[in-house]
């Protein structure tokens, strides 16, 4: 089948970026918005068409989904062996990601037409959004790990640009720098990992590295280093890159601050697409993890588990609604990582893999919805803080309703999407590690609690004094909300096991009522607790937090992780490393160079008189030189 056109899914956003970026200020702002939205709509339709063709039109006779290289071109040929391609690779996860990204991105574009209306830099905003979409699409369809790395960095740049969109605001600038530096630091690990891996496999291509049947894959062997094989090290380093982008503990610090960006950006980048790039990376490299680096998988599972608990606890204490959502994103991505970590390869064993991708898919829907809903609320009351909101259900009926659906979905109440995917993750964890499993039960309860704390705090509770009566957002904003709400409500029924599995052979995951029922009960308990505490204005929650005392402030201050980082960088790194290095640079390196320059300047001062400007002096020198040369030659001739 011909999938050559899929390159346009990636290229259209890029063309839109060039158009709006270069000529944006020649049009009326709204024109840029419409171009961006129309371009994304085209990509969206193409992706849906591709997914339909890939999954539903039978092509392979093996009953599994093939990996297709739809488009390939040599980008850089360093030597005969080292060739770097750019291309489009289609397999179940990349097709799924194409759908997720274009769907959410299209919704966000559409929503931004209303949300960003009248903002300065409207055209710039749409240009950056398109750039981001282009890079993210390029990342998921990468045919080799090097292409992935290129787009990985591009995604980082566009995230940086969008977080710092309000560049007049110092906090936004600081947040964008923080995000960039932290992810860049993680990407250093990623790069080293890539180099190590390609050194041992001799290939960049995913079709070699991640195909368990390929000769390259089976012949992977490496030396041992500090108790683990070099492949394990390289996979851990690659995971470090993924952990940076996916904001896993302890590299999570940039994500909450990234909420300084406009809300649609948070929905697109910092909830639905970019932050799951790390999960996608691990899923992409999954066969290597499963066969050659199982220790790394265990570490991934634990990091995922710890992050999910840790972020869920912090989310209970925050007041900035976007920050609550940011921590909830961290927690949900922790779930996905954990699911990958507990997964095995092939068939029922690969349940965790499938569950992770399923959760990625449903999470993209409801988390984008939550963020867009939060944007709609912020749009109405001009504040980010929960204590300046309350009783909004009367004023924002559509937002209220869709937000409720999203909260139910993320809390894991059937029949909403989150229930199904979370259940699969719990089952996978149950078979692998009971400790992690019980941890996730706990997190499921906390998730339900903080989401409904948010929900009751915004839409019920006591009505606050508003400067002007809050009003429902315009249609451009509510339509995406409704569409995403439909997604959050119904995507759970997709039989994901038939499409996305670790070995691409479909299987039918079972429902485990013995696991599902307790998890729903726990979630309901969390909701009930939130109902009691936040349904009406009450002092109980304040009393509870006061009685927890220092525990509460520890959590409220996010376990002081940021302070620890500051301490490590400012006190330890700056004093012990940077200052000596700076001294060395100033006094040794610079001084050497200065001395050399000084010698040259003194010498040239002494001899500059030779340059007299007198034509005849020069001619004299020239003639005498010639005469001397002639004499030498004559002398040599007579000798020989």
């Amino acid at each position: 089948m011909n999938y050559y056109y899929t390159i346009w899914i990636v290229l259209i956003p890029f063309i839109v970026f060039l158009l709006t970026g270069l000529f944006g200020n020649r049009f009326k702002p709204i024109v840029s918005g419409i171009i961006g939205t129309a371009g994304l709509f085209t990509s969206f339709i193409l992706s849906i068409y591709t997914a339909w063709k890939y999954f539903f039109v039978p092509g392979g006779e093996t009953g599994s989904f093939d990996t297709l290289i739809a488009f390939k071109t040599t980008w850089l040929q360093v030597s005969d062996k080292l060739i770097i391609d750019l291309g489009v690779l289609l397999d179940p996860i990349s097709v799924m990601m194409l759908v997720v990204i274009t769907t959410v991105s299209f919704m966000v574009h559409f929503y931004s037409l209303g949300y960003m209306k009248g903002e300065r830099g409207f055209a710039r905003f749409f240009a950056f959004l398109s750039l981001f979409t282009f890079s993210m699409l390029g990342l998921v369809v990468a045919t080799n790990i090097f292409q992935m790395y290129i787009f990985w960095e591009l995604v980082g740049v566009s995230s940086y640009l969008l977080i710092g969109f309000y560049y007049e605001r110092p906090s936004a600038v600081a947040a964008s720098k923080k995000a960039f530096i932290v992810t860049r630091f993680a990407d250093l690990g990623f790069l080293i990992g890539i180099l190590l891996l390609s050194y041992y496999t001799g290939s960049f291509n995913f079709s070699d590295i991640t195909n368990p049947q390929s000769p390259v894959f089976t012949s992977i062997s490496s030396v041992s280093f500090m108790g683990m094989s070099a492949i394990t090290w390289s996979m851990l380093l690659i995971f470090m890159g993924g952990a940076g982008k996916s904001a896993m503990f302890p590299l999570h610090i940039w994500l909450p601050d990234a909420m300084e960006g406009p809300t649609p950006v948070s929905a697109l980048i910092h909830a639905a697409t970019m932050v799951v790039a790390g999960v996608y990376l691990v899923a992409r490299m999954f066969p290597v993890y499963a066969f050659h680096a199982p220790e790394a998988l265990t570490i991934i599972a634990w990091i995922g588990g710890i992050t999910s608990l840790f972020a869920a606890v912090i989310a209970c204490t925050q007041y900035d609604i976007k920050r609550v959502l940011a921590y909830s994103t961290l927690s949900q991505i922790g779930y996905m990582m954990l699911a990958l970590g507990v997964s095995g390869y092939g068939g029922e064993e690969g349940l965790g893999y499938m569950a992770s991708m399923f959760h990625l898919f449903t999470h993209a829907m409801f988390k984008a919805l939550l963020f867009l809903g939060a944007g709609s609320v912020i749009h109405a009351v001009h504040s980010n803080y929960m204590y300046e909101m309350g009783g909004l259900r009367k004023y924002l009926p559509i937002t209220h309703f869709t937000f409720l659906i999203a909260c139910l979905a993320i809390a894991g109440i059937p029949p909403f999407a989150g229930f199904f995917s979370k259940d699969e993750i719990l089952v996978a964890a149950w078979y692998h590690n009971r400790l992690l499993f019980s941890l996730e039960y706990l997190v499921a309860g906390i998730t339900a609690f903080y989401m409904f704390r948010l929900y009751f705090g915004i839409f019920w509770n006591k009505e606050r004094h508003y400067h002007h009566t809050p009003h429902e957002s315009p249609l451009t904003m509510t339509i995406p909300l409704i569409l995403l709400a439909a997604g959050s409500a119904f995507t759970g029924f997709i039989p994901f096991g038939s499409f996305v599995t670790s070995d691409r052979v479909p299987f039918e995951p079972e429902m485990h009522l013995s696991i599902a029922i307790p998890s729903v009960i726990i979630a309901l308990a969390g909701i009930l607790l939130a109902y009691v505490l936040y349904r009406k204005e009450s002092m109980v929650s304040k009393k509870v937090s006061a009685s927890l005392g220092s525990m509460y402030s520890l959590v409220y201050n996010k376990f002081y992780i940021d302070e620890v980082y500051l301490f490590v960088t400012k006190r330890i790194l700056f004093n012990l490393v940077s200052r000596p290095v700076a001294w060395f640079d100033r006094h040794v390196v610079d001084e050497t160079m200065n001395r050399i320059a000084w010698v040259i300047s003194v010498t040239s001062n002494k001899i500059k008189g030779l340059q007299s400007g007198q034509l005849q002096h020069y001619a004299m020198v020239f003639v005498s030189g010639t005469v001397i040369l002639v004499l030498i030659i004559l002398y040599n001739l007579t000798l020989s």
Partner: protein
Amino acid sequence: MLTITHFLIVSTLMFFIGIYGFLTRRNLITLLMSIELIINSVNINFVVFNRYLYPGQLQGQFFAMFIIAIAAAEASVAIALIINIYRRFTSIEVDDVDEMKY
């Protein structure tokens, strides 16, 4: 009977007179004349070598023609330059034209 040596003596004399003039004269016009002397001494060499050593060929003669043409062009450019120098410095003494020193 004139031999090749006679011609070469003349051209060598011209050449060194030209060099001497170029190094000692102060007037730019005189310098130009010295250069012409040098060029023409070379011209004589070309023609003479052609005539005496390879009488069947014409390259040397043609070369001389080219050099005459180019010398004419060069002289016109040089005189244009000298005129401009005179306007700028109100002098055509080579000592006065030393703006390009350090």
